[in-house]
């Protein structure tokens, strides 16, 4: 009963640039089935995550232009494997700052060591980043320079203390001179807005990420002004579930360092505010080789906060050859190969709403597109949780010192789509 037999890392051009086997060696030729699927899918994005071959299943994830392909020989819960592969990718990201082919190749010795510690005999072992970091030190620019001069390496030479604690997510004997606890409330709005501007579907996906640097064994309680807002909450294993059920208070002994405390959803339609609106007019004339494109963005239910970091991405129909547009602010690009229009807007000033208008050149003779393209919109609002969620207070028990506490809110667009 091996969970994961082998792992192959494959880049977008189909090169297997790294492989690791936890039991016997599985020939690379097993990846041919993956390549076959990749070819069939046309676009790399569309390669299905589970592929069956005569003797194995291949379960893969696609992250940062890389495929992590695992080879499975026995019945396994697929979610388990997928989650684990994402954890591997997260760990690379955490260690090298990016999860790219170059970073993995540059740090191949560390990658190897990490995989060895994360999985033994095909079973997940140490996967918490703070524990791993004690086993294997992450490279820093400074350290890698020093390493190349002195020949020192990144292997930790003490036994990680976390391995001795009975709470798997926290090591014993943590000590800080400055004791701090920070919480980030991050909300993403997923929405589909129809042609007329009314909301087809909207939902908030929220998370609270914590960065806890507290000495000893602190026991924390976090309460909200309006906990009933939260529809579906998933918890970090450290949270005492019964306490939440009865009092709606998050009570926990935190892991050391960065971790995701909870994730939640707010989905009742009337609670989800839509902070931007788009006025659009996109038209293609029958039997003519041009069309008109005109969009304007404005603030809607933004609770008086500035909306910034706006980008609009549009996949134009295949028959579009080029676009001649004028933005009132920001800059735009159109890639005639992928037909993707990107408009980097910046922030909205209500006095003068940003707009982008001009002409669309179509392939002559081709029938006009049946459907107008959808607009994908990105934005960011600082110091606002759009659901209205507010942290009431944070209390600490079990330790005597006074920690420094802080909460930050931010709202972003998730899959925010406007149909035209």
């Amino acid at each position, binding site marked *: 009963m091996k969970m994961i037999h082998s792992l192959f890392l494959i*880049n977008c*051009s*189909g*090169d297997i*640039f*790294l492989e690791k086997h936890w039991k016997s*060696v599985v*020939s690379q*030729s097993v990846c*041919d089935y993956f390549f*076959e699927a990749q070819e069939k*899918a046309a*676009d790399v*994005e*569309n390669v299905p*995550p*589970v592929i069956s071959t005569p*003797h*194995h299943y291949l379960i893969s*994830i*696609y992250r940062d232009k890389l495929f992590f392909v695992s080879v499975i020989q*026995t*019945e*396994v*819960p*697929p*979610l*388990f494997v*997928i*989650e684990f592969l*994402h954890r591997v990718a997260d760990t690379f990201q955490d260690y090298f700052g990016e999860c790219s082919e170059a970073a993995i190749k540059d740090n*191949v*010795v560390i*990658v*190897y*060591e990490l*995989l060895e510690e994360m999985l*033994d*005999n095909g*079973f997940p072992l140490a996967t918490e980043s703070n524990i791993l970091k004690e086993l294997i030190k992450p490279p820093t620019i400074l350290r890698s320079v020093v390493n190349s001069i*002195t*020949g020192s*390496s990144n*292997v930790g*030479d003490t*036994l990680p203390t976390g391995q*001795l604690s*009975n*709470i*798997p997510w926290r090591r014993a004997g943590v000590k800080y001179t400055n004791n701090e606890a920070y919480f980030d409330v991050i909300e993403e709005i997923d929405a*589909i807005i129809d042609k007329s501007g009314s909301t*087809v579907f909207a939902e908030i996906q929220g998370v609270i990420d914590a960065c806890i640097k507290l000495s000893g064994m602190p026991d924390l309680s976090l309460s909200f002004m309006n906990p009933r807002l939260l529809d579906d909450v*998933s918890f*970090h*294993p450290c949270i005492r*579930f019964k306490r939440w059920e009865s009092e709606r208070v998050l009570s926990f002994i935190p892991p050391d360092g960065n971790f995701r405390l909870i*994730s939640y959803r707010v989905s009742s339609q009337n609670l989800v505010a839509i902070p931007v609106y788009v006025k659009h007019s996109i038209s293609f004339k029958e039997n003519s080789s041009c069309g008109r494109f005109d969009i304007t963005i404005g603030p809607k239910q933004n609770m008086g906060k500035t909306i910034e970091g706006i980008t609009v991405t549009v*996949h134009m129909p295949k028959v579009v050859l080029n676009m001649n547009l004028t933005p009132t602010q920001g800059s735009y690009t159109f890639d005639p190969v992928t037909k993707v229009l990107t408009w980097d807007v910046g922030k909205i000033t209500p006095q003068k709403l940003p707009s982008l208008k001009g002409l669309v050149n179509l392939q002559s003779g081709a029938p006009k597109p049946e459907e107008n393209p959808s607009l994908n919109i990105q934005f960011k609002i600082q110091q606002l949780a759009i659901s209205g969620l507010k942290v009431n207070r944070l209390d600490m028990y079990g330790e005597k010192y006074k920690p420094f506490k802080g909460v930050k809110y931010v709202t972003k667009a998730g*899959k925010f789509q406007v*149909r035209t």
Partner: protein
Amino acid sequence: MSQKKRQKPVVWVEQILLKMLPHQDEEEPASYRGSSGSCPGTVRKMPYLGSEDVVKELKKALCNPHIQADRLRYRNVIQRVIRYMTQGLDMSGVFMEMVKASATVDIVQKKLVYLYMCTYAPLKPDLALLAINTLCKDCSDPNPMVRGLALRSMCSLRMPGVQEYIQQPILNGLRDKASYVRRVAVLGCAKMHNLHGDSEVDGALVNELYSLLRDQDPIVVVNCLRSLEEILKQEGGIVINKPIAHHLLNRMSKLDQWGQAEVLNFLLRYQPRSEEELFDILNLLDSFLKSGSPGVVMGATKLFLILAKKFPHVQTDVLVRVKGPLLAACSSESRELCFVALCHVRQILHSLPGHFSSHYKKFFCSYSEPHYIKLQKVEVLCELVNDENVQQVLEELRGYCTDVSADFAQAAIFAIGSIARTYTDQCVQILTELLGLRQEHITTVVVQTFRDLVWLCPQCTEAVCQALPGCEENIQDSEGKQALIWLLGVHGERIPNAPYVLEDFVENVKSETFPAVKMELLTALLRLFLSRPAECQDMLGRLLYYCIEEEKDMAVRDRGLFYYRLLLVGIDEVKRILCSPKSDPTLGLLEDPAERPVNSWASDFNTLVPVYGKSRWATISKCHGAERCGPELPKTSSFAASGPLIPEENKERVQEVPDSGALMLVPNLQLTADYFEKTWLSLKVAHQQVLPWQGEFHPDTLQMALQVVNIQTIAMSRAGARPWKAYLSAQDDTGCLFLTELLWKPENSEMQISVKQNETRTETLKSFISVLETVIGTIEEIKS
């Protein structure tokens, strides 16, 4: 699939192989991978040195006493060896020097050397024995990290004869005071067992591992489970008894997510003794339904479903409670999680059709999602449609029909087609509008949908017939042409220009590339000829002439000849043979899977089955059947491939049956499906019983055997449907009708038989049932 062997300079690869240096001497299968064969982005990171030169240079460095004296320089050289090794160069040449390097107090250096040894030990078994001394010594090092590393490396050496050296260190490791070492030692037990060739189970070791389930370190506990499972796999894996089950349940909250997911899986084997205990366990599990890890949530859900298999309301309740987490997973950042979650949503919908109906908007596709997610979402939308949301769902699906991706657009059209079985008018209207777009890929699928629809829902025939004219201009592919021609043939009398459209096909029959289209054309034209002879006679003659005289495809030619001879027999005979019913609404009822009980899929939940279907998984795991000791897979009977053939001797046995009783069943009883349905609904069940039925099922064989004893099959589910149903009819010489329903439920391996009779006569009923029993019993016997 072609087997391409990739020759690598390094022979043994239990490690990462970095493909940095292009192998120019090997044949690059570039054609297979298309443009992706070689990667222009990879720049050579270093000049290619023959591995011999490198080895020589490194060997010299490793032996250099000055370097050995300088800890950092020594370590640096070793790191270079590792780096080359992972890049695929054969570094086995410096094995001796590396073994020497392992005798050091520098733990970093040790770790690197161990890495090296595990890779090359099988190539140099005699030299590796030297390393074992060092490793053994390290297993009693004061530093627990060193002990753990040494033990793990030793267990991973995988060379013959290593067992005798590792046994003692493992046993010591199991009692080590550092949990890090115990974790390694526990997994080492399984590795050692594998080295022994899985032959005998060391009872003392197993007991030791069972007692370590009480270890205070949570990972040691989970590793014990994993290790025992592997060692005891011949006996069906680790046994979870009551004390172990409750011990694990109490430790659950201390485990990490991987441990929790695995323990939940092991607990599936435990059967609580009493209802009280069952509900205690369910209470303990409750909080895991809200875990942050979808894997744990799904594991807990499955355990709930399995434990509560006798309490359907508890099962439903659990599915309601995980609705939130499951929906959240469906819109997770990880597309792969979304996909698997969607597959499970479909599974749940099979039992609780209304479960996600109010969340239908969750399953609307967003433009940027990958294909496989969109396709799943469309399937889900089809299944959750109800009176309240049908309007919105159809509007949404209508939008997808014009998607840039033809595949996705077609999937959306098929989806509308399947919703049309319930909401016919709205759907037919949408489909008709789509024809107006005059797009080839859309028209062909719409016409195929229409064909399937009129067969199941005859009430829409009129609307479909009105929409058809003009379609022929936009259909090029075989499937689409066949569907159009079939419709024109069967319903041609309602389509004014049907003969002219078919005439165009006849004109171009020479250049028609698909034989299937020609076959369809022959049948359709002959049918239309029956209803509109004047318009069709001439071209039918031309078509038959072409097919018989010029056609090269044998099947088409034979079909042409067959129709020609049939026409010679006379028009009445043609009518009798060709004019079959034009629709069969009962098929829809049969095809429509009834709400399946949760228990029919609970054991497949959180496995790969919902993703790929049971049969696919069965074929794959069969290859490992020898080593598997899990639940037995259904045996495929010997004649599965060859089709419904009853061995000769059995045929005789079957035929004897009718004579044994006083009952005489009339041959060739003709009952229409309509009549059957009416009668069936009007009668009460006269007799019901259950017969055992193990393993696979071959409807064709059964149908054939029943026919032999003059029991006719009116309708049956397709092969492989679960549950499988069939409706049978028979009549005895006194005119008494027997209507029978067979219901095969694979999950409790039994066949339920319900018989209805139009006259109440217990004697004949008994004989009839004994006939049925014998037939089914015989088939069951042949099969096994």
